[in-house]
C-alpha cells in the first residue's frame, strides 16, 4: 500500500509545483468542481456532441458572490435529458470557497440538448435571468428572486422553428439593448442546419467516424428578439436585417465599435466569412464585415471561427476583436482603427506564431494580472474526437495570452499553472472574481471530462477596481455602458457585456487592473441612455456600485 500513496503524494507535489510557478506574472491554481459535461458522444459522431459546454458566471441570488452555471447535453437521438447526468447545473458560491449544487431547487436542470447560455436581467427586476440555447430548443428562465427560476419560454416566444430552416441549433446568445429603450433584447447565435436523420457521416479511417467539416451542413440565420417589456419578445430577425445573412455562428461579441451610441454585433462563423452587424438605429442593422475588414483574416481563408470577445485591447477607447480557431488557423486579433475599419494584427501582435499549433474554443478578454492591459484567456481543445488524436492534438491545455502592451502578446500555459490538469477538449469559459481577492478567476468546461475552476493566484499585488452598474433609464444590467477609467494618467476602457467566449456568459462587475495605482483619478460612465456620469478620486481595490442617475 505504500507505493501508491507515495506516488499520489509525489503527483500532488508536482501539481503544486506546476501551479505555483514563481516566474510567471499570471498564474492559476486548479480547483475541482463536481460537474462533468456529457454530450452523449457516440461512435457515429453527431455534430452537436462536440459543441456542447456553455458556462455562466453570475450572481443568481444577489448575495454578492458569483455563482456558476453549466449547460449540458442530452441523449443525442432524442434530444431529451433522459438521465440526471445530462442536467444543466447551478452551483451556489457560499463565499467561503464552496460551490453547492442547487440545480434542482433552482429549477434549472433543463430538458433538451443545451449548448449556450446568456445572462441578462431582461425584465429589469434586479435578478439576472438566463437564456439557454440548444439544439432545436431554446429556453428562457426567469429568475424569481427567491433562488428559483421559472421557464417562461412559451410566453416569451423565443423558441419557434424557422419557417424556412426549421428548428435551429443555437450555440449561444447575447443580451443587448439594440434600440436603447432600456430593455434588453436577445440576439441568438445559430450554428448550422442539423438533423440526425439526414446528417452526413464522415470517415476518418476505415470504419472510424469523426465529426464532419461544417461545409457538409447548411448555414442558418441568427435571430434577434426585441423585448416588448411585458415578458414577451418580437422576432425582428428579418426586419432588422439580421436574417438575410445566414452563417455558421459560433460566437457573438457585442460592442459599440464606432462609438455612435448603438451596440453592434460581431459573429464569428465556422469555415465561412464572419458577420459584423452595424447598428444603424431604429432596430436596423447593416452587415459590414467585408467593408470593415473583419469578414476574413488577412490571409483571406475561411477559418474555423469559434468563440469571440469584443473589447478594447490596446486602451485606445475602441473595442477590438479577438476570436479563435483551430490549429494552423491562428487566433486572430482585429485592431479597431477607429474609423469603422479594423486591421488584422494577428501576426504583428505575436499571436500568429504563438497560436499556430493551438486549437481554441473560448476567448475572454480581461486583465488577469491587473497591470492595466487586458489579456486573453483561451480555452483550448480540438473539435475532432479522441479517435483523431494521432493526427491532431485533440486534448490541449488552456492558455493565457498576456498583453505586454502595444498589442503584443506572450503565451503562458505551463508557466501559468494551466498544465496542472491533463489536457482536455475544453469548450466554454466564463470569468469573474469568485473569491473577492481582486483577481479574475476562470471556469471552463470540457467534453466528457470534469469542469475546471482556475483560481487566479497571480503575484504582484497590483491594484484593481470593479464597477457593478445599475441602470435606471438604461437596462438594469447596464449592458452597453462604456466605462473610462483614468489611473496614473493613463486611460483604460471597457464596456458592460456579458457575452463571453464560446457559448458562455461572464456577468460579474466590469473589472479594471490598475497596476501600482492605489486610486483612480476619474471614472466616466456613458450609459446606453446617453447619460454620462463621472466619479473622481476613487480608491482602488473595491467594487464600486453605480446607479444610473435619474
Amino acid at each position, binding site marked *: 500500500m505504500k507505493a501508491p500513496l507515495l506516488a499520489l503524494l509525489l503527483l500532488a507535489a508536482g501539481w503544486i509545483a506546476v501551479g505555483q510557478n514563481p516566474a510567471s506574472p499570471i498564474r492559476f491554481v486548479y480547483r475541482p468542481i463536481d460537474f462533468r459535461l456529457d454530450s452523449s458522444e457516440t461512435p457515429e459522431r453527431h455534430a452537436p456532441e462536440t459543441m456542447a459546454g456553455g458556462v455562466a458566471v453570475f450572481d443568481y441570488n444577489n448575495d454578492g458572490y458569483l455563482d456558476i452555471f453549466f449547460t449540458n447535453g442530452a441523449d443525442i437521438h432524442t434530444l431529451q435529458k433522459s438521465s440526471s447526468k445530462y442536467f444543466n447545473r447551478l452551483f451556489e458560491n457560499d463565499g467561503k470557497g464552496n460551490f453547492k449544487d442547487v440545480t434542482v431547487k433552482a429549477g434549472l436542470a433543463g430538458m433538451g440538448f443545451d449548448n449556450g447560455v446568456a445572462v441578462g436581467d431582461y425584465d429589469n427586476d434586479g435578478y439576472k435571468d438566463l437564456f439557454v440555447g440548444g439544439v432545436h430548443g431554446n429556453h428562457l428562465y426567469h429568475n424569481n428572486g427567491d433562488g428559483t427560476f421559472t421557464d417562461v419560454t412559451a410566453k416569451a416566444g423565443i423558441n419557434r422553428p424557422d419557417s424556412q430552416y426549421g428548428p435551429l441549433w443555437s450555440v449561444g446568445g447575447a443580451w443587448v439593448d439594440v434600440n436603447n429603450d432600456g430593455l434588453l433584447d436577445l440576439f441568438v447565435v445559430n450554428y448550422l442546419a442539423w438533423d440526425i436523420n439526414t446528417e452526413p457521416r464522415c470517415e476518418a479511417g476505415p470504419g472510424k467516424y469523426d465529426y464532419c467539416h461544417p461545409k*457538409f451542413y447548411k448555414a442558418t440565420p441568427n435571430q434577434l428578439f426585441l423585448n416588448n417589456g411585458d415578458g414577451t419578445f418580437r422576432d425582428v430577425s428579418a426586419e432588422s436585417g439580421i436574417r438575410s445573412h445566414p452563417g455558421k455562428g459560433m460566437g457573438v461579441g457585442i460592442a459599440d465599435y464606432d462609438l455612435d451610441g448603438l451596440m453592434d454585433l460581431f459573429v464569428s462563423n465556422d469555415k465561412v466569412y464572419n458577420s459584423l452587424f452595424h447598428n444603424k438605429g431604429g432596430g436596423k442593422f447593416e452587415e459590414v464585415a467585408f467593408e470593415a475588414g473583419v469578414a476574413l483574416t488577412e490571409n483571406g481563408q475561411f477559418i474555423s471561427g469559434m468563440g469571440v470577445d469584443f473589447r478594447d485591447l490596446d486602451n485606445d477607447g475602441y473595442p477590438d476583436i479577438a476570436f479563435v480557431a483551430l490549429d494552423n488557423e491562428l487566433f486572430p486579433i482585429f485592431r479597431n482603427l477607429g474609423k469603422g475599419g479594423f486591421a488584422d494584427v494577428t501576426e504583428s501582435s505575436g499571436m500568429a*506564431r504563438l497560436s499556430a499549433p493551438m486549437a481554441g474554443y473560448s476567448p475572454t478578454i480581461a486583465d488577469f494580472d491587473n497591470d492595466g492591459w487586458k489579456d486573453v484567456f483561451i480555452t483550448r481543445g480540438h473539435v475532432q474526437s479522441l479517435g483523431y488524436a494521432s493526427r491532431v492534438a485533440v486534448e490541449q491545455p488552456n492558455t493565457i495570452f498576456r498583453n505586454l502592451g502595444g498589442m503584443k502578446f506572450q503565451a503562458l500555459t505551463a508557466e501559468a499553472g494551466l498544465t496542472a490538469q491533463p489536457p482536455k477538449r475544453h469548450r466554454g469559459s466564463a470569468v469573474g472574481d469568485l473569491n473577492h481577492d481582486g483577481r479574475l478567476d476562470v471556469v471552463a468546461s470540457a467534453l466528457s471530462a470534469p469542469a475546471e475552476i482556475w483560481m487566479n493566484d497571480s503575484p504582484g499585488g497590483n491594484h484593481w477596481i470593479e464597477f457593478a452598474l445599475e441602470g435606471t433609464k438604461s437596462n438594469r444590467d447596464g449592458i452597453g455602458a462604456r466605462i473610462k477609467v483614468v489611473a496614473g494618467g493613463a486611460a483604460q476602457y471597457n464596456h458592460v457585456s456579458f457575452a463571453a467566449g464560446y457559448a458562455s456568459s461572464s456577468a460579474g462587475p466590469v473589472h479594471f487592473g490598475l497596476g501600482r495605482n492605489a486610486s483612480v483619478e476619474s471614472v466616466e460612465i456613458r450609459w446606453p441612455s446617453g447619460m454620462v456620469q463621472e466619479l473622481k478620486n476613487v480608491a482602488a481595490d473595491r467594487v464600486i456600485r453605480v446607479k444610473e442617475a435619474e
Partner: protein
Amino acid sequence: MRLSAMKGALVLLALAARLWPAADPRAAAEANAGLDLARAGKYLEAIRHYRAALALDPSLPGLHLNLGLAYFKLNRFTDAVPSFEKATKADPADFQARALLGMSYYGSRRFADAAAQLQRASDQQPDNTELRFRLAQSYLWSQQYDAAKDQFQSLLLKNPDSAPVHMLLGEVLDAANQEEQATAEFEAAVKASPREPEVHFGLGYLYWKQKRFDEAGREFQAELAAQPQHTQALTYLADAEMHGGDEASAVDHLRQVLKLDPKIRLAHLDLGIVLAGRNESDQAAAHFREAIRLDPSKPDAHYRLGRLWLAMGREAEANAEFAEVKKLAQPEQLEPLVRIPGRDAGGTQ
C-alpha cells in the same frame, strides 16, 4: 511534402531462379526460356514465354512469381500485382512473393494494401531494413501515422544517422500535426546529411508553418544554394521575407520566381500583397487577378483584391470580389461530397 519516390530503390530482392521439372515438357521449356531471357534482362520477351507456359500449364509452380517479377522489373507494378497475388495465394508462406506483392502495391500507389502485405513480409524478416523502410512509407502514405511512426523509429534505432529516415519520420509527425517533433527530425536530418536533397527545404517549410520566418528563410536559402532553380524554396523564401518585414528582398525573389515559373499562384498573391502595401495599386491588382485566374476557387485573392478596390474607392468592383468570396462559401460550391447516412463517408477536413 513527399520527399522520395519509389524509383531506383528496388534492390530488395534477387531474381527468382527456378528451373522447372518436365511434367509438361512444352510448358517447362517455355518457362525455362523465359527465365533465361529474364536473366539476360530481356523482360518483355521473357513475359511472352511465361505467358505461353501459363497457357499450357497454369499450375506450373513458381511461374506466377516469375511473371510478376518480369513485370516488376519493367516497373509495370499494376501488371505485376495479379501474378504476385496468385503466387501468394498458392504459397502464403512465400516471403519473396509477398514482399514483391507489397512492393507492387506500393508502386501502384495502393499504399494501404502495400502496408498490409509488407507488414506480413516484415514479420517474416524483421531485420530486413529496406523492407521496413518501404513498410514505413506505406503506412505514411496510407495515413496510418502511428504505425508509420513506429516503423521509422525502429529504423532509426538501427541507423540513427539516416537522413532519409529522419526526414520521413518528420513527415509522419508533420502529417500528425506534431510540428515540433517533426522539426526535430528534420533538424537531425540536416545534421546527419546537410547535402541531402530537399532536407533544407523540408526543415524550412516546417519553420515556415510555425511562423518562424527567420529560421525558415535561412533553410530555404540553404536549399537554393544547392538547387538554385528550386522554385518552391524561392517562393517560400520570399513569403518568409514578406512576413519577416523584408519586403525588398521578397519582391526581388518573387519576381525571380515568376520568371522561372509564371504559374506559381502564391508568388502572384504575395507580390500583390507587397505592392498593395506600397500603394502600387494597379500592379498589385494585376497580380491578384492573375492569382484568381490560376485558381478562382480560393477566396484569398478575391478578398485581397476586394480590399484593394475598396481602398482605392472602387466600391462596385470591391463588392464584386466580395460577392465572389461569398459565393465560394455557399454550399453548392463547398459540398460536392455530401454523404447520406448509411452510404460511404466523406472526409473530415
